[in-house]
Each structure stands twice: as C-alpha cells, then as structure tokens.
C-alpha cells in the first residue's frame, strides 16, 4: 500500500434537517437560555404570488393602450357605515408600524411619502405621534390590546380606526418592545418605565370574541359620531371565519395580514411556525365576503410580502380591494442597504439579512430609538423615496392590468391568473398553467 495516497472521501454534506442555521440556533439557545427574538416576517420559502402568472391579451382578449386609455387606480374604503369614507388614489397603503419600533423620522418619512402618493399610513402599538399626523394626510389609528397611548382626541383626529386583533407574524401574540428601545419619549407615550422590556397583552382588555367586538365597534363609532371607517385587522389563521365574523361584528374594512408580514420583534418560532401564507389566506377571506354578499361592500386590505406592482395586481385579481406594505416600505426608506455593509458586519450580520431590529441599533436609523442613528434618516428624502417606490408599484400594476384589458385595477379577476405549482393552484384556486385543473375544486 502506498501510504501517501489517502483514500477518497465523500464531499462534506449538510443535513437538510440539521442545517447550519438550525445548528447555530441550537448553540445560541444553549448558551443564552432564552428564545431567539427578531423582527421582520416569515423568511422561509412559501407559496406566494411569484407562483402565479397573468394571462395577457392576445386574440381572445384585447389590451388597452398605455397612457391614453385610462387604467384607474383609486379605491374608496369604509363605504359600509362611515359618514366619511377614505378615498385613496392608489390601492397600496402603509401598514401599521409603531413609533417605538420605528424612529420618529421614519414615521414622518412614511407620512410624507404616502401623502405624495395619495394614500394612507397607519399608527402602531404606541399611539399617534404629532409628526405622523402632521405629515400623513390620511392616517389610520390602531386600537390594540395594549391600548398604549390610546386617547379620544387621537380617535377624533384620525381618518380611520383600526381595531387590531392580531398580525400575520404572530397571530395570537401581543406587541413586543425591548428595553433598548424604550427611551424617554416612547416610555412616556406608552406609560411604561424607561428601559424595561415591555410585556404586552395578546387579548383586548375589555372584549373577547366577535359578539363583544360588535359592542366595542359601536362604542368607537359613538365616540367619533359615526364619521370614521372602522377597520378590523387579523393575522392570517382562520381567515374565512375571521372575515365573516369581522363583517358580522360591524367592520367597514377587513385587514388581513399573512405570515410574511413583518413585526418589530417577536419570537422567531412564532414568526416561522404560526399563521398562513398570504396566498393561502386571501382567497378564503374573499370567499367569506362573497358568501355574505359583502364583497366590495366591506373592503379587504391584504398585507404580508407585497413587493411589487405584480403582487399588487395579483392580490387585486384574487379579490382584495387594496394591499398594505410594511417591510417593503422600510426597504424603500433604506432598510438593509448594502451601502451600510460594514456596519451590518459589525452587528454580526449582512445587508439584506439584518433583522435584529429589537436591539435598536439599526445603521439605517429606521428601527431604532438611538438619536444619533435615527438622525441618519432624512424624512424628506425618505418620503421622496417611498413615493417613488409607490409610484413604480402603481405603474407596474397598471401595465399588467392594461395588458389584461382592464380599465380599472379592480377589474382584474382570478380568471386572469394561472399557477406554476400545484400548491399555488390549490391555494389561489386558479388552474395550473396549461391545464384546467384547480386542485381540490375539479
């Protein structure tokens, strides 16, 4: 035997089950004794809008010319009961994100950008800041289980009220904000001691269940003299029932957030292992509305992984009246920008993967309360960037809609779509491309 020639070895192989990320997490848990907390939404691969394609016009259908032949984009929210429904120029809204999870500058930037684009922003689990009210022409005010900062003056200053039952990242969970981000201003707004880790309720303090939600909605209407649309927001879980119950409880608008929807902070296991993908949730909500004869009468806003005009068009085609963006809006402002790679590296991460927002050390100055970091975000520039991004998404959606022969984005319908995978076909209830087959339906 020639001792210098070693026998060949197989290639090193990672386990799909015990993959490197999983190994690192087990090591981390063993070292710290605490669950992993992070921000953002579900990161794992899920059936999503990318698995759907539009069928553009050809001989059987005719397209619209760009520019001259209008493709309208406006939407009215809250037509059911409110005296002053909300009219938006585009069917893309900014989802609820708290001052506390975001800096004041970020909230201002979102308000500015949304106003330029003719759409709304939403407060979050910490109340309404003067910056956001001042800079956001249309502001939706959340009523959450924690009730931090809730007050009747802000109810009256709001343009709509959103009763939050849950969010997609953590259906059944409450808010989370750690001490690093509970600085003086946040603490005061939330009536909490500075620097503590906020413990939040997961249920509302004075109602549980749709029968009592109905009475709560009545109270909110009475306080605001029936002027404002009342939204009910749920994380995607049992969206058929939840949508039906929101309608029965008296909602004007249902907001449904899929598991790709982001959060400021919660347990990683909650984000990845609880909830439904947006694609699976949306058709169930639409069906509930149709079964009640309330589709388009109670409007549906879908959120969770909306990234482009294609996603907007697909969501509308499947029956939503509008979409909301959260994560994407932050990226437009500058979140996870590769230009800051050096700083991400110092935090032990890399641009595009940074999600430890709860630590409050965001180099982009968005998910932080640190004054120096927050000052890095110029709200005017940020607003401009957001407005640009919203304009692009709108143009993209219009491009697709025109190609499908639609003069209004709302005229997109499920029959304009096909699916690339069996899962997506089953979830979206559209045929597998090249076939008539809708799994589970025929």
């Amino acid at each position, binding site marked *: 035997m020639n001792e210098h020639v070693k026998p060949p070895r197989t290639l090193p192989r990672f386990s799909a089950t015990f993959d490197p990320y999983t190994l690192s997490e087990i090591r981390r848990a063993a070292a710290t*004794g605490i669950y992993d907390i992070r921000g953002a939404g579900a990161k794992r691969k899920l059936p999503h809008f990318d698995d759907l394609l539009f069928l553009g016009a050809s001989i059987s259908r005719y397209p619209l010319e760009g520019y001259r032949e209008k493709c309208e984009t406006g939407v009215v929210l809250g037509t059911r009961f409110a005296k002053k429904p909300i009219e938006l120029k585009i069917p893309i809204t900014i989802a609820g994100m708290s001052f506390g999870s975001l800096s004041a500058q970020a909230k201002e930037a979102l308000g500015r950008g949304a106003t330029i684009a003719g759409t709304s922003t939403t407060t979050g689990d910490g109340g309404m800041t003067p910056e956001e009210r001042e800079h956001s022409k249309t502001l939706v005010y959340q009523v959450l289980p*924690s009730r931090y900062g809730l007050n*009747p003056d802000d109810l009256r200053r709001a343009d709509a009220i959103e009763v939050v039952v849950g969010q997609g990242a953590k259906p059944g969970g409450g808010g989370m904000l750690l001490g690093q981000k509970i600085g003086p201003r946040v603490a005061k707004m939330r009536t909490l001691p500075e620097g503590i880790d906020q413990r939040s309720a997961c249920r509302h*303090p004075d109602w549980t269940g749709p029968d009592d939600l109905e*009475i709560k909605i009545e109270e909110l209407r009475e*306080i605001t003299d029936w002027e404002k649309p009342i939204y009910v927001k749920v994380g995607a879980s049992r969206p058929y029932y939840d949508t039906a119950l929101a309608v029965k409880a008296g909602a004007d608008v249902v907001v449904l957030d899929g598991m790709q929807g982001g959060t400021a902070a919660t347990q990683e296991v909650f984000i990845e292992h609880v909830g439904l993908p947006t694609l699976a949730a949306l058709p169930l909500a639409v069906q509930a509305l149709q079964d009640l004869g309330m589709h388009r009468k109670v409007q549906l806003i879908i959120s969770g992984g909306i990234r482009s005009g294609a996603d907007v068009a697909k969501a509308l085609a499947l029956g939503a009246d509008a979409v909301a963006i959260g994560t994407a809006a932050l990226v437009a402002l500058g979140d996870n920008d590769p230009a800051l790679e050096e700083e991400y590296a110092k935090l032990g991460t890399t641009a595009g993967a940074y999600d430890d927002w709860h630590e409050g050390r965001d180099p982009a100055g968005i998910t932080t309360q640190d004054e120096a970091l927050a000052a890095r975000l110029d709200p005017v520039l940020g607003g401009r960037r957001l407005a640009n991004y919203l304009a692009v998404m709108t143009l993209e959606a219009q491009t697709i809609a025109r190609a499908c022969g639609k003069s209004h984005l709302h005229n997109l319908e499920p029959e304009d779509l096909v699916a690339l995978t069996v899962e997506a076909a089953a979830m979206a209830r559209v045929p597998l491309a090249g076939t008539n087959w809708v799994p589970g339906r025929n």
Partner: protein
Amino acid sequence: MTAMVEPAVFDLATTPLRELNRTLHALRPDTNMRHWRVINPAGRHAIACGLDAPITVEIEGHAGYYCAGHNKQATVIVHGNAGVGVAENMMSGFVHVKGDASQSAGASAHGGLLLIEGNAAARCGISLKGADIIVKGSVGHMSAFMAQAGTLIVFGDAGEALGDSIYEARLFVRGSVASLGADCIAKEMRDEHRALLAGKLEAAGLAGEVDISEFTRYGSARRLYNFHIDNAGAY
C-alpha cells in the same frame, strides 16, 4: 351669576342613543347646559361615551357596556349598575357607579376618578394607565392585570391573581386577597403611602369612612422588567 338651569332630560326609550351622544359631543366647553339626565337606559351600551366637556350626566338605571368610555372632564353618575368596561380609557373627570360594575371597569384609564359603591367584577383596572379607581365593595379575579400606573383602592376583598404582571400602578386592599398574580407582592405601607391613600380618599369625598391602617399596599416586585430565563415560569 349662574342661572339655575333645569337638567335636560333624554329618554332612551324614545330617543335614539345616537342623538344623546351627538348632542353631548356638540356641547362647547363654555356651555351652560351643564346638567343632563338620562332615563330608561335599560342596559344600553356606549351611553355618554367620548364626552369632552365639564358637564354632569346622571343615568337613572342600569347602563350597558362602555358607559362613559374615553371620558374627558365630565362627571357621569350611574344610579344603578354599569356593564363591561365602565369608564374604559377615561382621560379625566369623574365616573360614579352607585351599584355594581361588571368586568374590566376602568380598563386602560389614564386619568380621572372611577368610584364604585358596590362590587366590581373581574379585571377591574386592567391595563390601568394612571387613573384612580376606588371600589367600596370587592373586586373580581385578574384585577389590575398589567396595570401600568394609577391607583386601585378596594375596601373589600380582591379575587384571584391580583395585579398579575403589574407595572407601576399602586394597589391598596383592605380585605383579603384570594391570591396574588405574577410579580405582585405586598409592600410596606410607609407614611408617604398612607398620605397618598388618605389624599385619594379625601378627593373622592370618602375621608374618614374607613381606617387607613387597615389597608395593605401591593405593587410590582419588578422582577419581570427585564427578561430573564429563570422567570420563564411567570410568563
């Protein structure tokens, strides 16, 4: 000179609730229509909610849910019982329930005084954010759950899990406490606490009704303020 004006009367048996609340909301801060009576409430919900004027509203009978919800400045007197969430999210003013209060009385209230002559049910003062609540009877289980600021004063007993997950609210209970919630402990009554308690009782017109020394003070042990795995059992 203040002219004596007869209280305006709203009969909820014949007038819609919407008209009552709309009228009360439309009052200017300098209104001389400062005294209102609501008759035949019959358990209607959201009576006198969202008030924002220095007026007095007397409800003659039992109120339903969220009576005087989000109250600012006003005095609301319920000559009867009040349903779920009386004075919820109150910002200022005075709400006086002559009978009993149902669950979540004073939930998330930021300011003002809620006085309950009878008993309050479960979750009295849940999520309290700075208001004062005085209950001359007893309170039910999970009272002062996650109470952040303000005071809850109970002449009678408290049910299970008092002050569960409490932040900085102060609790004074004269009777027995069935059990304490996570991170809620009995605390020493020092002179400053006795003075605080006496001051609150006097402001409510209850000075001398009960012996201050019979109260026990409860509050946060502050062990859950920063997450530590050894406290996981409390979560």
